[in-house]
């Protein structure tokens, strides 16, 4: 089975964000970038399925040269090869999905893994967009997966529980925490990753369907009120919640 896994390269979630001079993006200087945390579940699942079904795992990432770092991380975990899709202009989710669809189709992958969400723009849609572009089935936010022949049985998280979905390969699966425990890259894996190839492609003619007008920081919140430091503050707190906030 030819398996694809899509990874994005994102600021570490603990980093402070500064707005760039353009006023439309973040200033990347001094920001540590990492593989998108949800994509580690996607890489792990791709590797597990390869171990079970045989085949090859190709890592795809859309962005600049810096994304090679996240591709290497996936290669170090055990993926076989990488494809960096370079884009001239900043792409939105539809642009990214279109660029991925072209190369995944070229590669002939019928089992595709994405994270459920990229923690930069937090769109949570690239996997679903990609499935529709490829004409594949899709199950998003997956926390349990079984593959038997062509049949897919996947559990996805919903409000108040889970739903079990039945579908078939070809399919795009987006992974949620709980699906698996991503493996650590071994030293051997890290060394081996340096020898694996990362092919470079360009996403010609892909356009975004949206345009950022402005990025800004949230307005600082007024410091709250510490009502007290022991049980004697409880009646006052309840009074505030009832009479000032009117929420209980």
């Amino acid at each position, binding site marked *: 089975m030819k398996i694809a896994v899509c990874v994005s390269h994102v600021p570490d*979630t603990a980093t*402070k*964000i500064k*707005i760039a001079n353009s006023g439309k993006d973040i200033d990347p200087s001094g920001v540590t970038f990492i593989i998108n*945390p949800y994509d580690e579940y996607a890489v792990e699942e791709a590797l597990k399925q390869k171990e079970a079904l045989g085949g090859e795992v190709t890592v795809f990432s859309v962005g600049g040269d810096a994304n090679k770092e996240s591709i290497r991380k996936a290669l170090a975990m055990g993926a076989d090869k990488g494809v960096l899709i370079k884009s001239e202009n900043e792409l939105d*989710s539809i642009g990214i999905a279109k660029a991925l669809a072209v190369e995944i189709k070229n590669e002939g992958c019928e089992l595709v893994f994405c994270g459920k969400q990229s*923690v*930069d*723009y*937090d*769109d*949570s*849609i690239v996997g*679903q*967009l990609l*499935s*529709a572009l490829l004409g594949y*089935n*899709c*199950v998003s*936010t997956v926390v349990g997966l079984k593959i038997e022949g062509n049949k897919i049985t996947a*559990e*996805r998280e*919903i*409000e*108040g*529980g*889970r*739903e*079990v*979905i*039945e*579908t*078939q390969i070809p399919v795009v699966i987006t992974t949620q*925490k709980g699906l698996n425990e991503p493996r650590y890259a071994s030293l051997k894996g890290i060394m081996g990753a340096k020898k694996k190839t990362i092919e470079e492609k360009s996403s010609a003619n892909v356009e975004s*369907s*949206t*345009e*950022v*007008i*402005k*990025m*800004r*920081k*949230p307005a600082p*919140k007024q*410091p*709250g*009120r*510490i009502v007290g*430091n*022991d*049980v004697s503050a*409880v009646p006052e*707190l*309840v009074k*505030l*919640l*009832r009479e000032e906030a009117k*929420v209980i």
Partner: protein
Amino acid sequence: MANNILAVLEQREGKLKKASFEAAAVASKLASELNCDAIAVVVGNEIINLNEVSKYGIKKTIHLKSSGLEQYSTSGYSDAVTAYAKTVGAEYLVFANTSLGRDLAPVVAIKYDAGILTDCTNIEVSDGDVVVTRPVYAGKAFIDIKFKSSKKILTTRPNVFKAEANNSAGAPEIEVIEIQSPNLNSRVIETKKSEGKIDVSEAEIIVSGGRGMKGPENFHLVEELAEVLGAAVGASRAVVDAGWRQHSEQVGQTGKTVSPTLYIACGISGAIQHLAGMSSSKYIVAINKDQDAPIFSVADYGIAGDVFEILPALTEEIKKYK
């Protein structure tokens, strides 16, 4: 003048969801500002509260009906919604950003050749253009963003837009369109409900516990407060990773994003990844014995004290008014 706006509503077990009424209210407001009509669309089999839609400013509701589509199906629902959007030439489609909306809306976007913006927290019309605000980088920044495409899809963050029912609304107009042999390439075969619990992503009030609760055996204090408030129980990642609570209760970047009217954080430090999931709550209360804990910087009210003393007293005090 824009073309039609569709509010794509969600039913579960034959009942429309609250988040969908919010999406309906957004669609109806947009329609009045853009001087066009809003139509509600819902896919399902028997639906019991279809006539409630008109209370949110939408006169016409289209029920795309099939017994095969009683339960969610990405393939079947997306085909049905796309086909209807094509017949009326809809310019905007509005979905709620729920687990279903987030799965369905992007697939419809491709099938209908529309642009898409998800998890919107503000939607405004300026010079005939819709400008959307949405959080990025886990709420550490916001973007104002607009469409370049001619067809446009929006998903609204639940609990952010108000859906106030207006009882003076006229009689609802409901049209049923039977869907013949729906595309069931993917379909739900079973739903596993977490029994009797309110989900954090749908709750008006959430009481969350963190590592300051010291152990799973103390969470009854959180549960009892939640009980008197009719609230859901939430948790920080630290206590989920420790196995004290289930992941479905986790609030934050790798858990759920919530916007309740009241969020009570008990023994939670307020790490940036936790704040990412709850900072858009309307009111935040923090109970933490460390006065310098970062949670206080987002809290509206706080008690800098011991959860083991405060929680039982708070539960008792609230009972007086219930």
